């Protein structure tokens, strides 16, 4: 195994884009080479070592062997773990937008919270967030028909609006609440929300959305039966009928 630590030298006011911080990019490089990779801060292209301190095992290693630990304030650092196929990225604290976007494999774990667009267009691997996630978790890019297609996301806290928009596959589990329009245009993925949400499953055509507590349900969903899951009662709905959708929406009954 190869483990390296990247520490942010300070809190960044102007956000940093660091798509190079991923196991795939770093595994084949030595510590020194890693330091000379590029990152962007606004219109300034900088060396990674200008903004971060890199320490740990020297390379190279395979992607699978690679663990990257991020310490310090990464809340304004975007695109961490973009497109990673394997290995581990461990964020000790919070992370900026677009972490794990286009992720194909490996593990991205975040001990704090994640900003918007976490795991955008994810295809595989696993993302775990101990805190909250922002808007557009596991969603697609603007105008795209597909968001997340595969993999697994777990958020211990809450998630923002448009959770899993255009979801085409994979599963998302939120222990807390989710913002408005969770699972909009779901085309085959699975979403579980431990808390409440608002207007879930708008225009969903396939897939399942389970909301344990409360949800305002759209007038275009057909109320069907009450089902029991793990000893809890859920009201089942079919929809979204505006598009003759065959999705399944389950909303907890009377649990509190």
């Amino acid at each position, binding site marked *: 195994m190869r483990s390296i630590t990247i520490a942010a030298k300070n809190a960044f*006011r102007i956000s940093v884009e660091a798509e190079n911080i991923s196991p795939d990019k770093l595994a084949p490089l030595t510590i020194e080479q890693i330091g000379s990779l590029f990152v*962007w801060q*606004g*219109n300034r292209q900088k060396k990674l070592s200008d903004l971060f301190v890199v320490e740990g095992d020297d390379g190279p290693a395979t992607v699978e062997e690679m663990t990257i630990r991020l310490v310090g304030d990464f809340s*304004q650092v975007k695109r961490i773990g973009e497109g990673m196929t394997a290995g581990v990225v461990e964020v000790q604290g919070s992370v900026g937008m677009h972490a794990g976007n286009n992720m194909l494999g490996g593990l991205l774990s975040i001990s704090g919270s994640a900003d918007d*667009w976490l795991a955008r267009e994810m295809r595989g691997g696993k993302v775990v967030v101990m805190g909250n996630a922002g808007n557009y978790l596991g969603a697609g890019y603007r105008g795209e028909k597909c968001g997340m297609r595969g993999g697994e996301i777990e958020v211990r806290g809450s998630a923002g609006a448009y959770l899993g928009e255009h979801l085409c596959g994979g599963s998302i589990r939120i222990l807390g609440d989710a913002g*408005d329009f969770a699972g909009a245009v779901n085309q085959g993925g699975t979403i579980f929300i431990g808390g409440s949400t608002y207007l879930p499953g708008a225009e969903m055509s396939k897939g399942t959305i389970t909301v344990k507590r409360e949800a305002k349900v759209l*007038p*275009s969903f057909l109320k069907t039966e009450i089902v029991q899951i793990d000893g809890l009662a859920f009201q089942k709905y079919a929809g979204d009928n505006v598009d003759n959708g065959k999705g399944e929406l389950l909303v907890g009954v009377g649990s509190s």
Partner: protein
Amino acid sequence: MIKDAVCSFCGCLCDDINVEVEGGMVKRVRHACRLGSSKIMGHGRIESPMIRKEGKLAAASFQEAYDRAAQILLAAAKPLLYGWASTSCEAAKKGILLAEEVGGVLDSTATVCHGPSVIGIEEKGLPGATLGQVKNRADTIVFWGCNPAEAHPRHSLRYSSNSCGRFTPQGREGRKIIVVDVRETRTAKNADKFVRIAPGSDYEVISALRMLVAGKGDVVPEDVGGVSKADLADIAATLKAARFGAVFFGLGITHSRGRYKNIDNALSLVAELNSHTKFVIMPMRGHYNVGGIGQVLAWSSGYPMSVDFTRGGPYFNPGETAACDLLARRDVDAALIIAADAVSNFPRATAEALADIPVIQIDPYENPTTQLSEVVIPCAVVGVEAEGTAYRMDGLALRLRKLVDSILPSDEEILVGILESVHKQRLLRANEEA
């Protein structure tokens, strides 16, 4: 007397304005509404460029102002170039070039009005038409969350409710007007049917209408967003019975809970109505050329607003790259505000972020943004003192005329001045380094 001038106030771009000019001054304006007349007649202006010195704005020359503006932009890692809705496309073109040159983010006031409409259109497309098509054909018009009686005073007479055309010779009498809003506006008072919906329920109401239009009403509950199912069924039937229907929508729907999803859903409703009859939909654009900056930006960068040029290749993502996002996150370090009053129009906490960074203002008029600007550059008013292109709310391009002379440069000329200063200073720096 200048005939058929184009009014540069709102997105209606009325082009039948007659203006009497005497001794280089506008004496009288005919055909324009109160909003347009007031603009064309002219009022209090910033007279000289100003640069802040020891905390106070002091008069400076244009060249000094350009140089200081260029210096601020060049020093910034992430400058924001915001506004563009009340100026010409020619200025927008130079602005985009400037944003590319200094590696900035360019955003328009669409971000605080029809930005959500743009995102909705990205989801569903826009089934629209030119306004003349509505005038000549529409027998059913829906105003959803908009109030043209106050925001676009001549809209109804020239293009919609009260206009007459080839297949609509009776004008208002031959039309059904439906207004959907949370309050009974002046527009609502003149409607055949006013549908009051609960605030934030637009999405649900539209979903219910989509169900009813498609004949799937059995699923719809008895009350949606404060409107009875019977009422909704009645509206759905009216829409389907139209020979040509038009939906105009405004900030009542883009600013409410649901945002772009509301528009997204409305676009689908209109698309589906076309399986039964003919229907079009369009946003009521506020500032006269907010449509134009969107068009120019789209053909220049591929995206219609909120374009981040910091890395050289355009990147777009409202929610991340829009002016309000960047300011709320304090993720900018300089701003050029042109043809917009960001300080007044942004939420207080967002506007406060502007006080922390150097601001360059280009505007004919003093406003709260002036008060916290580092550089203030007054300009000629496009459509009155300068020529240029603007795009009407339906996307139609018109050429604005120059009615009177001004000693002030146009926005375009000012931006060219700043661009030249950017080049000059960059060359100087390169020489120094060499």
